[in-house]
């Protein structure tokens, strides 16, 4: 379980997160929504160690993530994707995924120089694992293409593949559907469900309401750095403050 309590982030004098608290139940899909600038990505960055909160606690599986570096947090099974497309551009799709497998390998410096039998075995194992991930994501046909040569939607899938390769127990997806076509979004939804079914807890920041409401068990709504609502999709849809935040008027029809 992920527990965020009283998380506060300030940039200079600007309060991006004014002390938010929420928790994410294991094995569920939880979405964080809210207008632009509500602090969604800031929350992601704070949880995964990319920026340091000025206050608050982040506890994952009973252990505090506060003050740890992103790579240490990844080692604890918490892996994120980025809002803007983020792949290893000059590498093939296969090598992108192999890089994502970093923590699944153990070969150290001297064994690598000696190219011991164990190192060669590990390389073969990692290559097979990379192909498995590519098959799971549905990118096997793009295996040898350069990541930055792919169409946008597929680059987003490469990102997802890299994250999955790191074998997360908590996966944070920052606007995974942004820029995708309708068909690609359907594929993505199916994939995220499959990932959840593999016992991965998923936390998503997303703007596409249809996608969020169809996919999530819990929805958390942020506005101006505060949690204004939390609940199942049906509750959120009817929540007066959420409607006001999105439409700017209390009288607007839900």
């Amino acid at each position, binding site marked *: 379980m992920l527990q965020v309590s009283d998380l506060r982030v300030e940039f200079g004098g600007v309060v991006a997160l004014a002390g938010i608290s929420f928790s994410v139940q294991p094995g569920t899909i939880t979405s964080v929504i809210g207008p632009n600038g509500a602090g969604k990505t800031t929350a992601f960055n704070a949880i995964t160690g990319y920026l340091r909160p000025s206050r608050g606690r982040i506890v994952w599986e009973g252990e505090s993530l506060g003050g740890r570096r992103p790579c240490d947090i990844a080692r604890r099974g918490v*892996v994120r994707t980025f809002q803007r497309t983020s792949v290893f551009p000059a590498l093939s799709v296969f090598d992108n995924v192999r890089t994502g497998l970093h923590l699944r390998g153990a070969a150290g410096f001297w064994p690598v*120089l000696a190219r011991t039998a164990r190192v060669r075995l590990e390389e073969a194992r990692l290559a097979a694992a990379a192909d498995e991930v590519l098959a799971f994501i549905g990118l096997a046909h793009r295996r040898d293409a350069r990541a930055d040569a792919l169409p946008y939607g597929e680059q987003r899938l490469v990102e997802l593949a890299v994250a999955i390769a790191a074998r997360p127990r908590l996966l944070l997806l920052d606007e995974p559907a942004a820029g995708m076509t309708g068909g690609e979004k359907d594929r993505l939804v199916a994939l995220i469900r499959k990932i959840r079914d593999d016992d991965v807890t998923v936390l998503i920041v997303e703007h596409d309401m249809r996608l969020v409401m169809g996919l999530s068990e819990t929805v958390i709504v942020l506005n101006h750095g505060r949690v204004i609502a939390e609940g199942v999709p049906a509750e959120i849809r009817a929540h007066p403050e959420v409607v006001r935040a999105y439409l700017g008027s209390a009288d607007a029809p839900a």
Partner: protein
Amino acid sequence: MIARVLAALGAVAAVTAPLWVANPYHLHVLIMAGIFTILALSLNLLLGYTGQLSLGHAAFFGIGAYTSALLTMPPLEWSFWVALPAAALAAGLAGWAIGRLALKLRGAYFVLVTISFAGVISLVSVNWMELTNGPLGIPGVPAPSVGPWTLRTKTAYWYLVLAMAVLAYLVCRRLVYSRLGRALVALRENEPLAESVGIDGTHYLVLAAVVSAAMAGVGGSLYAHYTRFVSPEVFLFSYTVTMVIMVIAGGQGTLAGPVVGALLFTALPEALREAMAWQWQLLAYGVVLIVCVFFLPRGIVPTVTGAARPAWTEGGLFKTRRGSGSRE
């Protein structure tokens, strides 16, 4: 395929070189090319694979040269075969210290720290008279020996340098095509993403700095026992510049690039010296360099092998720490 044939031809040519290079002066140029191959491979490990530019690489070269010279001279008189790894160790230690110090911030900061480091080390070598004999340098560095034989001839030394260059190449190759090499390239390509899958940026950049520095130290040791003389001249900035030229012109981030670059840019000044008056030599060197960079911006090897242009070369050398993607 063509690359394989070329590599095989190159290997045969290298092994048989003393047979067909009749002129000892040409063999000397070849030996220097071999030493510079090691240096270029070493710089490429940092610049080409992690994207971090060291402009103080001559310092690691010089530390290797002095360490090896001092250990083999009286009063210690160690064997060259112990002094060589000791030179690598000393340079590697310096690389570790610089890496720990400067690689937290990376980029332009690392460039500045490496330049300053080389400057400081050079001053030490000039002023620490008791140890280094100051600007006069240390003459009479012994030639390496194997049992009863001393490697005094150019032919013998060529095979020593060749063996070390092959070793350096193998170290680079095995490193690059491993989990560790992928981590280095990942940090070059997209550091935030690399960190997000558990790659410890500082750890791997320091590792690259240590290996790179140690390799440059080996080059320094080989240089000292070849010229049989070490002076503060080994810390000259022009050595670093030569290494950078070799790596960039040959093709950074490729294994063959630094080798090709080292051969070409060791031979070029010598060829120019034979071809024209001294006033024109540097000018011609500059023209060749500009033509190279202008027409082969990715370097010779990637152009010949047709490898795709790495995206990261477009942003220039100085990528800042947070490359992309973590802001709302």
